[in-house]
């Protein structure tokens, strides 16, 4: 139950974020739904480690965004951004920089490395989703 509530809040946050970039209401709703799904995948696979769960969530978001963008005949970026922003390691990167400013270089380095790996896993997930959708739609 808690998982669903958290995912719904994640969806609401990502939909609102998409709206801030001037997306049409329907696209913001789609972005929010993708954000909901992304956080659900992230939470369900969290046991495999933060990097793996981020990768799987990014892959799911990328696939959903690209398939929906094909259906709607619009670019995938506006749909994916809302979902991805929930996963981006912005807060971790902030905490890392904060540790550096406070003089905790070791903690800062660890966190920055973690943020980099999370960003890398999001990038990888998105690139893999591009490849998969390219293969799917080429066959048709």
């Amino acid at each position, binding site marked *: 139950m808690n998982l669903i509530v958290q995912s719904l809040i994640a969806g609401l946050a990502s939909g609102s*974020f998409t709206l*801030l970039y001037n997306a049409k209401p329907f696209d913001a709703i789609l972005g929010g739904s993708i954000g909901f799904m992304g956080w659900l995948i992230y939470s369900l696979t969290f046991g495999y480690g933060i990097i793996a769960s981020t990768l799987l969530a990014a892959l799911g978001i990328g696939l959903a965004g690209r398939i929906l963008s094909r259906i709607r005949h619009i670019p995938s*970026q506006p749909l994916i951004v809302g979902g991805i922003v929930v996963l981006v390691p912005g*807060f971790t990167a902030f905490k890392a*920089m904060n540790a550096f*400013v406070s003089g905790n270089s070791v903690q800062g380095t660890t966190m920055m490395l973690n943020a980099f790996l999370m960003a*890398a896993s999001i990038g990888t997930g998105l690139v893999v989703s591009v490849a998969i959708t390219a293969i799917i739609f080429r066959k048709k």
Partner: protein
Amino acid sequence: MSEDIGKALDFMINTAAALMRTGSPTTRTEIWVSKIGQKLGFEVDAAIIYTVIYITIKDSNGNVMTMTKRTGNLSSDFDKFIKIDALVKKFVDGKINLSDAHSELKSIVNSDFSYPIFIRLIAAALACGGFEYILVGGLMSAIASMILGAIVYSATNYISLLDNRFFQQFSSGVIIAIGAWILSPIFKGSTLNGIISGAIMLFVPGLLITNGFSEISQGSVISGTIKESEALALLVALVFGISAGSVFVRGMKF
């Protein structure tokens, strides 16, 4: 293919600039520019390196023309992005001619659609509160984050202090730190860490970090690396702003 080479190049570079200014990925823009050129019967070489666009076209008679354009600050406007993308698609499919496409592009670029201020503020508040709740937790911190996020969003977007993103990030950080310090005792049970974590989410360049990495992995290494560098600079500015704000209010611990 009797289209004038100059007009064609002008349309191509304006389309690329419009796409980049509204949030299109580098790779997609390069592909669209190449397709427009091919549609008009030119050989095209397009290179987009972050804010600089280089396009060279060659016609069947061997005439070569190159144009360079700086796009200035890049931002995201999905409404315009979708419209420009649809226009390019229409042009590539042959449903519209060059001069009509160019005038339509100009009207899309000059159109000024944005949501009313209260909708934008509600969206900013929901985004900040939601991010706080799922990343840190705590209902009171989430509510405080919503209020602070809306205030800082309006302060940076509607009261433009300077056309300088680094300074905007720094001042956002200062306002967030001071705002969190003020709101923390009002909302009993909220934490400074929680309030700040939600309110900063609109300003952390997480998207830039991720897009940068995506572009590096798709082959646009220079563009991606520049985005990573910019993200780091913006993050440093935000954190330094929060540090400066916390020094100002003293005794604030994260």
